[in-house]
């Protein structure tokens, strides 16, 4: 059975794409088959982290959404390119063309798309997990993406604007009984070491916090040079990502 996740945040710049790529690669190291879908349609960025060139993409997600291209023409298999020792990693990239971005933003996408793409990825590629890297904010289309996936991961930075926005997002999702988890990202190191942090944030939001990832400047510097955890398997960031994936594999079934 395929399990779909949305990675969402209230604000931009919270590290959604970086987290998506690193979680996906870590899941493959658990011998899982994972598909990552770049739904940050106004500013797609996953391809930069994966170092996928436009020429590798026969068609884009936008073509698939409009019925102009088959799933098989959109999916890029990154398993060999990233030299993953086990599992499988697939990538579905969004169009970079301004007119196609504008068209999709204007018309929105259908709820069926999420169910259908996850189902087809399961049938054709046998994936265990589909991860939707969504557009930030609290708008109808993004919430449709979040609500249409099985589980929602909200990424939050520890600043007032993001805490407030995430609180509101959690309130909205609770009205739909959505299974949600929070991952604290780019947390100032002194704060990340506070043992009460996880419990305090969970209490405020009414949503379990399953990961606390401190701010490491080297993650930002590395962004366009590939997936961080592959180059730095013993870095504390990698261990934090592993802890989140341990939770996913053991608790979300």
């Amino acid at each position, binding site marked *: 059975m395929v399990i779909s996740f949305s990675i969402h945040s209230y604000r931009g710049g919270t590290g959604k794409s970086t987290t998506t790529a690193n979680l996906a690669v870590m899941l493959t190291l658990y011998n899982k088959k994972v598909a990552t879908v770049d739904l940050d349609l106004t500013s797609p960025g996953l391809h930069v982290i994966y170092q996928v060139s436009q020429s590798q993409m026969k068609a884009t997600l936008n073509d698939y959404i409009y019925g102009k291209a088959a799933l098989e023409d959109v999916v890029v298999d990154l398993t060999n390119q990233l030299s993953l020792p086990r599992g499988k990693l697939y990538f579905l990239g969004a169009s970079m063309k301004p007119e196609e971005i504008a068209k999709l933003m204007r018309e929105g996408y259908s709820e069926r798309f999420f169910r259908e793409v996850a189902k087809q990825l399961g049938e054709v590629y046998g994936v265990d997990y589909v991860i939707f890297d969504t557009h930030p904010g609290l708008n109808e289309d993004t919430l449709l993406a979040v609500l249409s996936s099985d589980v929602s991961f909200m990424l939050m930075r520890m600043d007032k604007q993001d805490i407030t926005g995430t609180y*509101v997002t959690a309130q909205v999702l609770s009205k739909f009984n959505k299974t949600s988890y929070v991952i604290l990202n780019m947390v100032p190191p002194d704060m990340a070491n506070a043992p009460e942090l996880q419990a305090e944030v969970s209490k405020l939001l009414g949503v379990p916090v399953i990961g606390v990832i401190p701010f490491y400047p080297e993650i930002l510097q590395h962004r366009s040079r590939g997936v961080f955890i592959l180059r730095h398997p013993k870095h504390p960031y990698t261990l934090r990502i592993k802890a989140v994936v341990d939770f996913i594999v053991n608790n979300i079934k």
Partner: protein
Amino acid sequence: MSMRKHYFKPGRDESEANLRAKISQALLSAQTDIDVVEKKVSAFERRLEEILNRLDDLESRLKKLEELLE
């Protein structure tokens, strides 16, 4: 992998219209409570500040203790 290619058929159904209406409603009702939200977040920030101060205090005490032991 099967040879048949898999396409998505665009189009929306009634259940989606209902979901979009529910999302709009949920967003509207969330926005009306924003004063309450800000109060809660401010209280949370104060609690966090206290925790950090306590940690700082603990750290400086440990440092002093280490100096005394040296």
